[in-house]
């Protein structure tokens, strides 16, 4: 059974690219447009991994990570955040909130797949 990955990003183009890449890699993808949307969907669907942007309206990435870790079904899943180089402090904040790893934007599809493989096996 294919593993399910959620991508939470307010940028439609990034979501599209992430979704496209993951589907090509054989994963099922659930999209969320911001942190709040993501948390709502997480409560109802079981996902194996979460990829989230940090800057999102309504609920940002840090908030999403904290919220997800509080859900029993997401306690141990890998959570990867998308950051930009200028956000070194955000990286630390995200790790403290429970993120497994990060991907620095801009990234190529191969880089995304490499990280997914690293944390999901």
């Amino acid at each position, binding site marked *: 059974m294919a593993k399910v990955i959620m991508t939470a990003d307010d*940028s439609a183009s*990034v979501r*599209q690219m992430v979704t496209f890449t993951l589907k090509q890699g054989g994963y099922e993808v659930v999209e969320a447009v911001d942190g709040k949307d993501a948390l709502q969907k997480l409560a109802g669907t079981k996902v194996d991994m979460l990829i989230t942007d940090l*800057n999102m309206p309504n609920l940002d990435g840090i908030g999403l990570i904290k919220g997800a870790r509080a859900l029993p079904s997401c306690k141990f899943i*890998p959570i990867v955040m998308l950051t930009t180089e200028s956000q070194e402090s955000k990286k630390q904040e995200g790790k403290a909130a429970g*993120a*497994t790893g990060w991907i620095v934007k801009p990234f190529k599809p191969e880089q995304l797949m490499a990280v997914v*493989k690293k944390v999901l*096996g």
Partner: protein
Amino acid sequence: MIDQHRQAFKEEAYELLAELESSLLELEERPDDQDLIGRVFRAMHTIKGSGSMFGFDDIASFTHEVETIFDMVRNGKLQVTGRLVNLTLAARDQIRAMLDAADSGEATDLQASAEIIVGLRELAGFQGQVAAAAPKEEVHEAKKDQVTYRIRFAPAREIFVSGTNPLTLIAELRELGACTVVAQTAGFPCLEEMNPESCYVYWDVILTTDQGENAIRDVFIFVEDDCELKIEPIAEHNRYEEQQDYKRLGEILVERGDISSEDMKAVLSQQRRFGELAISQGILHEGKVQAALAEQQHIKEVRQEKQVAEASSSIRVPAERLDLLVNLVGEMVTVQARLSQTAAQRADGELMAIAEEVERLTAELRDSALNIRMLPIGSTFSKFKRLVRDLSVELGKQIEMTTEGAETELDKTVIEKLNDPLVHLIRNSIDHGIELPEARVAAGKPERGTVHLSAVHSGDSVLITIADDGAGLDKEAIRTKGIERGIIPAGAELSEKELFNLIFAPGFSTAKTISSVSGRGVGMDVVKRAIEALRGSIDITSVRGEGTRITVKIPLTLAIIESLLVKIGNDSFMMPLALVDECVELTREDVAAAHGRNLAHVRDQLVPYIPLREHFAIPGAPPEIEQIVITQVNGVRVGFVVDHVIGEHQTVIKSLGRAYKDTEGISGATILGDGTVALILDIPQLVQAAEAAQE
């Protein structure tokens, strides 16, 4: 596909720019609205982030400048002013122009971009020219040598809470190269006290990779702060180092800090296996020793693989070129011998020094030239596997062939010439040696018989052994057949060895029925002849009911041999040193005392000898005291009488050419230091001929 993403980005960007415009206009009216500032920042951030993802690098770098300013505004470091809004609106229009240009291919107005950025920077309070974005330097790391690393990876107890699965990291390590993983479980609490959601295990990993240490660190990039990670290079694999044995167990453990060197010495002072001892004394726990053992094993495997890899990365060269090279080296050796001789005669110190140097270089050159011709015997072995399979099917027997020492190297010519004799010997083992399955079961042996083929270096020779677990030789059957065939007289007292050697006599067969495989009674004598032609020997041992073992001893190379130089009259002869046992004197009195029988007393033993002067009909009288060179062929001692023994000599063998190809008693020739020719004696053949003449 990428275009599709670019298109999606553009649509999104136009939307964001439209939103940005209205946000900015609202912001002009409510400059303190944090929510509006946040929206502007996120719009810029998304355009920057997504732009760079889909190749809009100019937009990304330009937007980055604007985003930086709004980050300051967001953090309260900068006030929203009319000028800021104006500049940002201009920036927004500029981004739009850049998006439009991306489709039409028109160049964007770089000057306008630069002016906006300078304006924004002034606002922010930092000056400075806009530097053209430096092209990113791509660092290409040169292909590195393989290095073996020792890695200890101890994840934090609470590693699982961060969503990390250490096993995927271990799996990722495995992808970097040959990897040996040992999980350390010694720190485990008992079940009741174990928190099932904590990580207690840590790993000792030995990894051989050409990717460099950074690639290993990259594996652990997300967990750097949540684990204890030690990476140390322990071995670089270049060809010079490989010769040595790898570190001993104790050394590895001391290096790892698992044991102190004092403790190690204390343990080593007792004569037991280090690992067991250290554990039993409680200095070390077992897992650490296990890891160190794994390290030794790992290095061994990597080296073997490397050897295989090296062998396969070879150059193919026509064999004739190698033969030519070896020939030239042979002549070189001859000339060098002359040089040394001349230098010694002149007693010229300087010349002698040069001659010595040339001698050393020549020896090295000779060794490496001969080395080039060396091939592993393995390819021949694998051909035999097929032979065994086919024959056992044909004969209805179940036979497994095992091999050992396939990597043993032999001169190419020798390997080629060995093929036929070995085929014959293996056929014989299968046909006469291994019994039918029913017979084997009845004898309490496994149904499936084994033929074991092994090769091993022994001095300047290679020993090739063909051992089977078949019925073994039937001494009585051999004796009966020997008598029947008239090879031995009835009632002859023969040692076991002599009896076994009968099967190498021409026209001998003990098989009850004649099969297509062997048993035609030809072959074993041919085998013996072929082996002897390679200056080798053949030996047979057998235990009835348990099996037979045939050992073939072959010199490493045919091109050069160590030999003993002897003289008869003015003629020089060479005798292969490997066959020479000793030299004794033969006086006229001795000859007279033997009454015409060519037998010498050597330490209370009678040794038959062949007077070579007579044998080769060399004119002239022998000296007062002649020399007997006693040789040993297949355990039989035979002497050869010569005038003088000159000494040991390194002999480059030259074939005699077609005209003398069939000359008996001579296997080749060589050129001496002074330019004269010496013939190389074919000792086994001379012995055989003498025995034949006696009968």
